């Protein structure tokens, strides 16, 4: 770090961690000495800590212990409250809290009525207070683990969190003794978690982050350019998430139970709570094994219930929900004005992303060239549940030495609002198949400026004088019908696989049988920006072309023979015409 940014030692040394604060689960992480992010387990050994608080006889339970109270003590258990922070009652969906302490209108915010002390009357706990208690527990788990008092954090939030929500969350954290150094968005934290690995190579790529959680799913399309990230689009769905998959299993087992015992366990709150907890466990087990069991003691009317289900059946039953995830991802890609062919990487994040079927569906949605980063498709994938907290921990380690005002300045729109190239910039080369020029991009579209990229280009057979033609390029999707009878598998499956819903409707499937068309991206050469000549190149020489776009969108192009003398350097015309000085480099 440069001298001007080193700061006076703060009164109390900042000790920061990364926190992912989810509606269903939270996760805490820190970076070890070598800059590696590690996720911390709490006292019970959980790395995924349910964002639950429960009170029994004045005692506070947190995490998994609190969650298990949904059966016996649901009224004094607070769950799924993260999204309520900083909101008013009219603008929230109370559905997730239906099986625990209900959300209530309280002054301008939301509160829960909970018997949290030994007194006779319940207290009204505002959502901010609940958040404070939750963060306090998380911080204390981290402090215990690290042996040092944690007093600051980088916290992840959804991309659509409002300023009021951030403010309220910041306030809650402060009351828990935690200074929020910076909020970072969940999808970007996930990208950073992957990019910060030692083996990662920074490249220009378009990344889809699918954060599939418990009560909401969020997808973001992120342009990753030279290690900088710009969100191109987002899509949110509050009806397609882990809970809906739990429901699929709940309904399945309930039906089985009804068949045997003529009573519906879903009609009784307690039975339903039991079944729900067990169904979730079964669902998680199905992410690993090809079948899983479920057993509930005294499910209803004192009758024990146990059963098994195999993965295929589950995938069939959950078809509609799974299709919902896929459609949400497609929606986000569409909103970014992109095609599935443009996506280089899909990061599966969030608990539900453990589900193998989702990764499988994505493998057929995207072309083979797209990397699907999920446990079932990539051995070296990170745990989807841990991505946001890891990213947050890395960011915390990057900025914890900064002065708070410096951090505020760094997140200032004057620094973040940046022109992005609307077209790729590249060089024309000769392809072996076509005699016409082929566009090779150096700077991709959606690259923030300033930016500079270089390429090394071959010269024709015997060397000699060569032309460096710098152009804008636009990618287009070329659709063609496959060669009749050709056996080769089309590059891309335009549609998600047809292992569709368990819907028994006899709709015509014939259209699915139609031959899939081949879709590919091609570059269309746009505006020619500049031409330069490199003279008398040697046989087998390489020509290095560098395109540098300044913060003011001024473009400088240099070209030279590698190992040769001199070279050419010039600048593009300014928008209003009027050339700039050209000269030799």
């Amino acid at each position, binding site marked *: 770090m440069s001298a001007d*940014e080193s700061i006076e030692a703060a009164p109390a040394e900042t000790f920061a961690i990364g926190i992912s604060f989810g509606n269903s689960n939270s996760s805490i992480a820190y970076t070890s000495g070598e800059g590696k992010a590690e996720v911390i387990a709490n006292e019970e050994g959980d790395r995924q800590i349910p964002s639950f608080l429960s009170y029994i006889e004045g005692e506070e339970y947190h995490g998994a212990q609190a969650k298990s109270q949904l059966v016996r003590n649901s009224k004094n258990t607070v769950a799924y409250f993260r999204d309520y922070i900083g909101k008013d009652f*009219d603008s*929230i*969906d*109370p559905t997730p*809290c*239906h099986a625990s302490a209900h*959300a209530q209108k309280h002054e301008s915010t939301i509160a829960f009525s909970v018997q949290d002390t030994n007194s006779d009357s319940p207290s009204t706990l505002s959502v901010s207070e609940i958040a404070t208690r939750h963060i306090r527990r998380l911080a204390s788990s981290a402090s215990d683990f690290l042996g040092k008092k944690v007093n600051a954090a980088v916290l992840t939030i959804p991309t*659509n969190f409002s300023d009021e929500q951030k403010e309220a969350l910041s306030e809650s954290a402060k009351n828990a003794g935690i200074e929020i150094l910076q909020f970072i968005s969940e999808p970007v*934290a996930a990208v950073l978690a992957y990019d910060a690995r030692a083996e990662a190579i920074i490249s220009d790529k378009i990344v889809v982050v699918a954060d599939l959680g418990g009560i909401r799913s969020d997808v973001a399309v992120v342009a990753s350019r030279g290690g900088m990230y*710009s*969100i*191109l689009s987002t899509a949110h769905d509050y*009806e397609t998430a882990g809970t809906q998959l739990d429901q699929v299993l709940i309904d399945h087992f309930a039906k089985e139970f009804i068949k045997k015992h003529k009573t519906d366990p879903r009609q009784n709150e307690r039975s339903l709570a039991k079944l729900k907890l067990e169904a979730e466990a079964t669902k998680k087990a199905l992410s690993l094994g090809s079948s899983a069991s479920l057993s509930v003691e005294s499910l209803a009317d004192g009758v024990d219930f146990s059963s098994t289900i195999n993965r295929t059946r589950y995938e069939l039953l959950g078809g*509609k929900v799974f299709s919902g995830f896929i459609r949400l991802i497609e*929606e986000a890609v569409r909103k970014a004005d992109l095609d599935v062919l443009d996506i280089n990487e899909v990061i599966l994040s969030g608990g539900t992303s453990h589900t193998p079927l989702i990764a499988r569906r994505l493998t057929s949605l995207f072309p083979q060239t797209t990397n699907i980063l999920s446990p079932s498709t990539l051995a070296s994938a990170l745990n989807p549940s841990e991505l946001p907290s890891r990213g947050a921990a*890395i960011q915390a380690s*990057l900025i914890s030495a900064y002065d708070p005002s410096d951090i505020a*300045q*760094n997140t*200032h*729109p*004057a*620094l*973040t*609002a*940046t*022109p*992005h190239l609307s*077209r790729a910039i590249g060089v024309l080369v*000769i392809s072996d198949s076509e005699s016409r020029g082929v566009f*090779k991009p150096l700077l991709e579209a*959606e690259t*923030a*400026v300033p930016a500079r990229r*270089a*390429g*090394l*280009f*071959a010269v*024709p057979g015997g060397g000699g004088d*060569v*032309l460096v033609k710098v152009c*804008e390029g636009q990618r287009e999707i070329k659709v063609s019908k496959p060669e009749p009878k050709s056996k080769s598998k089309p590059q891309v499956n335009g549609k998600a696989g047809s292992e569709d819903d368990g*819907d028994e409707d006899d*709709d015509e499937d014939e259209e699915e049988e139609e031959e899939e068309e081949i879709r590919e991206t091609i570059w269309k050469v*746009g505006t020619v*920006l*500049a*031409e*330069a*000549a490199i003279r008398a190149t040697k046989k087998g020489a390489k020509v290095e072309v*560098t395109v540098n*776009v300044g913060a003011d*969108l001024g473009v400088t192009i240099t070209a030279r023979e590698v190992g040769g003398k001199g070279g*050419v350097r010039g600048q*593009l*015309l300014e928008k209003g015409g009027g050339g700039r000085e*050209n*000269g030799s480099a």
Partner: protein
Amino acid sequence: MAAVQVQLPLPVLPEGWSAEKDFKAIGTLSPATQRNIEPVGPHFLAHARRKRHRRTFSEDDRIQAQENVKKVEDDDAGEISEPEDQMMLQRDAKDWKVFYKIFAKLSPRPNLILRLFFPTVLLLTNHSQGQDHYAVLGLSRHRYRATESQIKTAHRKKVLRHHPDKRAATGSSEDDSFFKCIQKATEVLLDPIKRRQFDSVDENADVEPPSKKEAQKKGWFKCWGPVFESEGRFSKDQPVPRLGGNESTKEDVERFYNFWYNFDSWRSFEYQDEDVPDDNENRDQKRHIEKKNNNARKKKKTEDTARLRSLVDECLAGDERIKKFKQQERAGKNKRRGEKEEAEKKLKEDKIKAQAEAERLKKEAEEAAKAEKAEGKKAKEAAKNAAKKNKRVLKSSVKDVNYLLPEGEAAAGPKRVDEVLNDVDLVMTKIDNEELASLAGKLGGAKGVDAVASVWAEETKRLVGAGKLKDGEVRTLI
């Protein structure tokens, strides 16, 4: 970032390419998009460090910087907000199903009848199976056009308002019947198959064909255009050609009717099925109802095809453009016929004209020939006369000089006169008129016997030289 390696070669520099310092600036960059970069990660921090240069930014900078930044989050508020009716809120999802089912058996337009019987109610929940799913979500104006994200947003809005827990929290009864309607609506509309089934019988998206009077009053295109726009929602082929307007070309209009006469519809009628009992007790009855449903679907589908056909017929029959095109065609034909007659007439006239012309020319030629002939006669006569005159000159020339006898000689005797005149005659037979004239000219100018004699001698010599006279044939003139 590391330089990319490109194996494909750069092109050879074209012959004659030249530029100052070997660089030519040609175009300018396309306009850039203003976006927020995420203030996250080591590369951003480096970027921030470079961009800040020790300066700090103010609130004004913030406002300015954010001005043109492209938004990535949708506005949650927005177009979808329709007023809710108290009556609607009290509806139960099952309510109208019963009536609907009954009427569905009686008429292809059950809602129409429902509306007749229960006018107030139907303004609220006028839909198949008791519920207008779009109205419930506040999407009445969007209907089949609503996108999936619009439905999701609308649903969320309704949930935020009507969740029973919220009602309970605000003290009203924990009545969740409308909430169930919301859930039902969303379930149907977010399921592509169910939504199609529902859209198939969504009469509220129908646009009734206008009566003749209406069409006259409001404008035929204004009335019929929306009818086909709405029917077009059932088309497997999209986009659907539009009715167009008065200015549409014949091809467009033909394409429109062709499309509608060959309409490929996905419309189906499962939504109006009678419920099949889902218990296993009564298999026979179950099968019976299934069969009945199937037949009903088929029948409705056939009826719908026929309905559409007659709709297109009706539209076609009232389409003034068709008449216009026919008229134009007829006019075209008439015009062509007229043109043909005209041409024939002209041809005839031309022929007559040509004939007259030819005759005129002939006459002229004849006259010219005649004139020429006359002219020739005159000339000949003149020539004859001239020749006569010249011959007289010739004869008198010798007579005037005493028949070429030397001066002082006595008047020539008859013999001499004969000899000389015979010779003159002979010469005259050997020369043409021109030579005659020239000779006469010379003789006219000659005075005295010697001069005349020399002219004669010269002429005789010339004729001998030309082989016209034999030497000695003419003795007196030499």
